[in-house]
């Protein structure tokens, strides 16, 4: 039911490791970590969801917000490590078409 976040500086920008469940209760914490990172100019923010067991629309909304923020600051947002369940949600909602997930975004909207 809980969320743990870890942030690491990388050559290209920042990597955020997320562990646990992303829902209405834990999402604000994710947002507060993620948005400031995407507000930096010309950087890359990679979010590693390998240890995320649960995500719902509140969590997906955070990624849309982060994408918009990155976009308007000339930065990139990418998501990695998604398991089958989490991928399914990004795909049902069409988010896999606008966010780079495991380097395999299908159609680009720029």
């Amino acid at each position, binding site marked *: 039911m809980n969320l743990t976040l870890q942030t690491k500086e990388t050559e290209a920008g920042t990597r955020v490791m997320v562990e646990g469940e992303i829902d209405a209760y834990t999402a604000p914490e994710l947002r507060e970590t993620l948005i400031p990172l995407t507000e930096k100019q010309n950087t890359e923010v990679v979010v590693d969801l390998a240890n995320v067991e649960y995500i719902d629309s509140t969590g997906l909304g955070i990624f849309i917000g982060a994408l918009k923020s990155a976009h308007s600051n000339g930065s990139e947002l990418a998501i990695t490590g998604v398991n089958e369940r989490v991928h399914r949600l990004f795909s049902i909602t069409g988010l896999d078409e606008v966010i780079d997930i495991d380097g395999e975004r299908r159609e680009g909207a*720029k």
Partner: protein
Amino acid sequence: MVNTADVVEMTVPSKAEYVGVVRLTVSGIANRAGFSYDDIEDMKIAVAEACTNVVDHAYSNGGTIKFSCSIEEEGLKLVVSDDGQSVDVVQLREEIGPVDGQDPVGELKEGGLGLFLIESLMDEVEISSEAGVAIVMKKFLQRDGVEENADGPRSADKQKQ
């Protein structure tokens, strides 16, 4: 294993911290009812979406989320309801849909995916609004023979593109 027409009822405060509590309860019921891991996860999300909507939209001054679950022979009937603000269900249903990959990033909305996910993950969904909103969701046990579509109602749209 679980008899027909058993009912579990629950009331929690309309606060984000209790959505996870209802989710756990759902996973327990669905586990006992014999659902697969994937179906259980689908139901957890659907119920959480409905509860989150109560937290986000139903009350201006606090209230409660009502959850009930009937364990029926064909599967589970999950109901999330509130006594808050009413909505125009017809209009609501028209707005339900996924993210449009053709939209410019700047115009993407950060919300509005909750009801769409519920529709996608459950087998039957009814929304009604008199005093407050009630959402009735069904998941059927063992849909052998019926081809399950991993992408939900979306896939039809996709083929058109």
